[in-house]
């Protein structure tokens, strides 16, 4: 479903701030794969997702989604294939627009926007039903401005928006990191539910090792712009946090350095 082939990316090349963010990444995802990604600060996790999403151009290599080479497509055209949730709850929604307007924007991802009505009465009913699933009371607040919602509510809404039109790949960039533990758990539960129900191919970056092990069918660990550990299936299920830290030490030759990492 997704192929990342030999992708390299260097930021600020030729300057004192030169940073090799991706150092020849190769990754293949089958349909329905749910991959969790862990790694230290500056390992290239977010850069990898941004490369897939087309936020920056790649230096070399290819990104192929479901057989389409999207390497040269701009971000807004790739959006047709991708659902994205960001770390910052402010990023994924338009605060000045209503809940239903945000959903209607998402429902038209990948379609040409012409002079048809921006949101139909039929859609409103559908959104109400969909929001009920989140169980956050948003179904009664369809016309409320998204800016009035809490961070957790906004992330849940963004998640719904990202999956409203089934994406080929769902990209989650530490989407629970900015939330308090209870809300983070709730948003992660909703994530698992939505991914499972739609059989979505998903990449989730997380700083929570326990979550990385528990959620999904595959786990990759990154360091210095490379994938240093890739495990799936039964082997992944048997992992412990201690195993992961040990693996990291062996592969990277240093202690895992991530100021947000959670061992619990």
């Amino acid at each position, binding site marked *: 479903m997704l192929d990342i082939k030999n992708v390299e990316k260097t930021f600020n090349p030729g300057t004192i701030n030169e940073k090799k963010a991706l150092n020849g990444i190769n990754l293949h995802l089958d349909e329905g794969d749910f991959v969790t990604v862990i790694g230290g600060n500056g390992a290239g996790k977010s850069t990898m997702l941004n490369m897939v999403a087309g936020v920056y151009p790649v230096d070399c290599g290819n990104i192929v989604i479901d057989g389409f080479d999207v390497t040269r497509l701009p971000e*807004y055209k790739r*959006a047709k294939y991708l659902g994205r949730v960001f770390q910052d709850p402010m990023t994924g929604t338009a605060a000045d*627009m209503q809940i239903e307007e945000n959903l209607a924007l998402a429902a038209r991802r990948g379609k040409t926007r012409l002079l048809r009505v921006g949101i139909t009465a039929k859609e409103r009913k559908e959104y109400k039903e969909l929001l009920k699933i989140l169980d956050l009371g948003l179904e009664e607040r369809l016309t409320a401005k998204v800016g009035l919602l809490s961070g957790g509510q906004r992330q849940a809404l963004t998640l719904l928006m990202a999956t409203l039109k089934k994406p080929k790949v769902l990209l989650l960039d530490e989407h629970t990191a900015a939330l308090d533990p209870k809300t983070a758990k709730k948003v992660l539960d909703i994530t698992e539910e939505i991914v499972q129900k739609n059989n979505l191919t998903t990449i989730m970056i997380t700083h929570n090792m326990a979550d990385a092990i528990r959620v999904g069918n595959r786990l990759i660990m990154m360091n210095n712009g490379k994938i240093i550990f890739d495990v799936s299936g039964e082997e992944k299920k048997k992992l412990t946090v201690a195993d992961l830290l040990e693996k990291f030490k062996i592969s990277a030759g240093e202690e895992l350095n991530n100021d947000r990492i959670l061992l619990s």
Partner: protein
Amino acid sequence: MEILQQLLNALPGSISQGLIWGIMAIGVYITYRVLDVADLTVDGSFATGGVVAVILILNGWNLWLSMLMAFIAGLLTGAITGLLHTLMGIPPILAGILTQLSLYSINLKILGKANQSVNVNQTDLLVSLRWVRELAFHNPLITVGIVVVILIGILYWFFGTEMGCGLRATGANLNMSRAQGINTSFNKVLGIMLSNGLVAFAGAFLAQYQGFADVKQGQGAIVIGLAAVIIGEAIFGKIFKNFALRLLSVVLGSIVYYIVVQTVITLGLDANLLKLLSAVIVAIFLAIPYWKREYKAKHMTKNKGGKVNA
């Protein structure tokens, strides 16, 4: 008493001017509020509208067709600014200034001289300040009033369409818009075009209203447009939530602005100080939300009982 009499006499004229500038202010609202871009093209495109309309009218064109051409000319000026910004990476304020400057030359070329009168006695016009007291359809209060209502209706419809929603989303959150497949560059150009189209349309009205087109007609227009937007929001912001009503509040803000201006002139203010006064008013209104936030932030820390310098 005499002053009050003078003011009442001047009222129809103030409201007419307010209505015309209100259309211009709606254009400013689209860039400044919807698209979140401060576009200074308007100082040039406002004059472009007047210049184009007057030249076409003098050449015997149909009046409404001339207005349409002024609108299209405005769209083009907006397209230039939009492309300078999106294709060439020039910051929007600077892009607007560049277009505005170049429009000064272009307007001179279109008009052939610095100003050109259109005499309502010799030429048929849509509006004229001579008619502000007449009880007839061609009274600018009625003509421009109807046009304002129609324009607000069209804009309300447009911003409810898929394209209009995409434009609003672009102004609200660029990252989110791109993630939802919205071509943000296209929408920025579209928004700036639409804005300047309306501004030029208003310029075409004003040139007819005052009976001449002038290449300096748009000088400081952005400040008046912003003043209208800000005054409208300050007075009606709490009660007008609907998008159409918010556009209406901008027009009402423009009318209030012109009534205030007329009042201070009647009270004896030197008319040469008018632009200074406008700039001061806009600066104060722009500062108020910032001051409010600062004040609140200070009080929040105090209420929590923390030390001031902690």
